[in-house]
């Protein structure tokens, strides 16, 4: 039951992009086309789950026993940055097709606050490792739903007769606002 609540909450009620504002940069940046949105979702899911596991282990087995919790920010960002680099190298060697599909998005992920945000939230909500992994997967699904829906909307926006001053980013932001309003309908579900 606990697990179910985490999943529903992370995907719909507290959607990571539209309700918590994590990962807005890729949300605005790569949502112009449906195919890039799907690719970005794949890369984010992959890195988010693995980064959450690694940072959880560091927090529990290094930072807490040595009581150096104040190094959390520094160590987490370094681990995530190193980790993304490593994933890129391994992927290039092991699976070139997957690297082709996700490769261009990987460097962008280091400064994606959704990754760091989910790692920090896992610690803050004092989840155990299993709950942390489920939380990370659900958050990534939530990210995917939001960005793919938004990419679909933006592809249609291009064909609309938008007033001159609102073209481009302003109308995209207003559309995102309306999408967020739709997601507010889920509040109270859990």
């Amino acid at each position, binding site marked *: 039951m606990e697990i179910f609540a985490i999943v529903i909450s992370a995907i719909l009620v507290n959607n990571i992009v539209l309700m918590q504002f994590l990962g807005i940069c890729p949300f605005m940046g790569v949502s112009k086309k449906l195919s890039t949105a799907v690719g970005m979702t794949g890369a984010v899911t992959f890195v988010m789950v693995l980064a959450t596991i690694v940072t959880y282990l560091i927090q529990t087995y290094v930072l807490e026993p040595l009581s150096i919790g104040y190094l959390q*920010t520094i160590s987490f960002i370094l681990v995530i940055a190193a980790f993304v680099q490593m994933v890129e190298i391994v992927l290039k060697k092991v699976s070139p097709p997957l690297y082709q599909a996700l490769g261009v998005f990987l460097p962008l992920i280091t400064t994606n606050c959704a990754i760091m945000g989910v790692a920090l939230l896992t610690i803050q909500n004092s989840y155990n490792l299993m709950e942390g992994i489920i939380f990370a997967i659900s958050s990534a699904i939530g990210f995917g739903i939001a960005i793919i829906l938004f990419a679909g909307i933006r592809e249609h926006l291009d064909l609309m007769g938008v007033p001159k001053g609102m073209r481009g980013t302003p109308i995209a932001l207003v559309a995102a606002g309306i999408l967020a309003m739709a997601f507010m309908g889920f509040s109270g579900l859990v």
Partner: protein
Amino acid sequence: MSQLKNFSKGFIKDNAVFVQLLGLCPTLAVTSSAENGLGMGLATTFVLVMANIVVSLVKNQIPDKVRIPSFIVIIASFVTIVDLSMAGFLPTLHASLGIFIPLIVVNCLVLGRAEAFASKNNIGSSAIDGLGMGLGFAFALTLLGAVRELLGAGSIFGLDIPIFPVTDKGAPITMLIFVLAPGAFIVLGYLIAIINQLKKS
């Protein structure tokens, strides 16, 4: 470029939020009131100025290949300083900004200035650049926070502005949606449209 121009470019011309669309996560998340926006803006300004100074000091010692990780460590150190001092001196503000204080470290604006400006210029211009861009960011966040607070709660910086009709009990009838998540996107969208028009004329 004169130092004055260097300082003032961050306010409108190259404004981080309205023009370059950098650092949107904290921009949207913490601006439910003008006070939160200003607090976040000033915290980022401090990190930006200090990181720019240090990066510009050590730019010749750092090998080119490891410069990005080194910049991130420098930035993360100052973020930790801000995080801990804010928790000590301003606990209420720290609580309402929450997870977004440690997340200054992944704000693309800070890394962007370190890479694009401080790693190529001397200490003086880097500090001024950081101050200008930071205060421009703070200005954008405060403006966004003020508009949202005014429309959603009928006040600015906690001071009541009586522009809304009131109920029998005297409470103003406001548009609550603007302090909630969707309002952030919508207000920012309109502000960017207005700034674009101002820049054109």
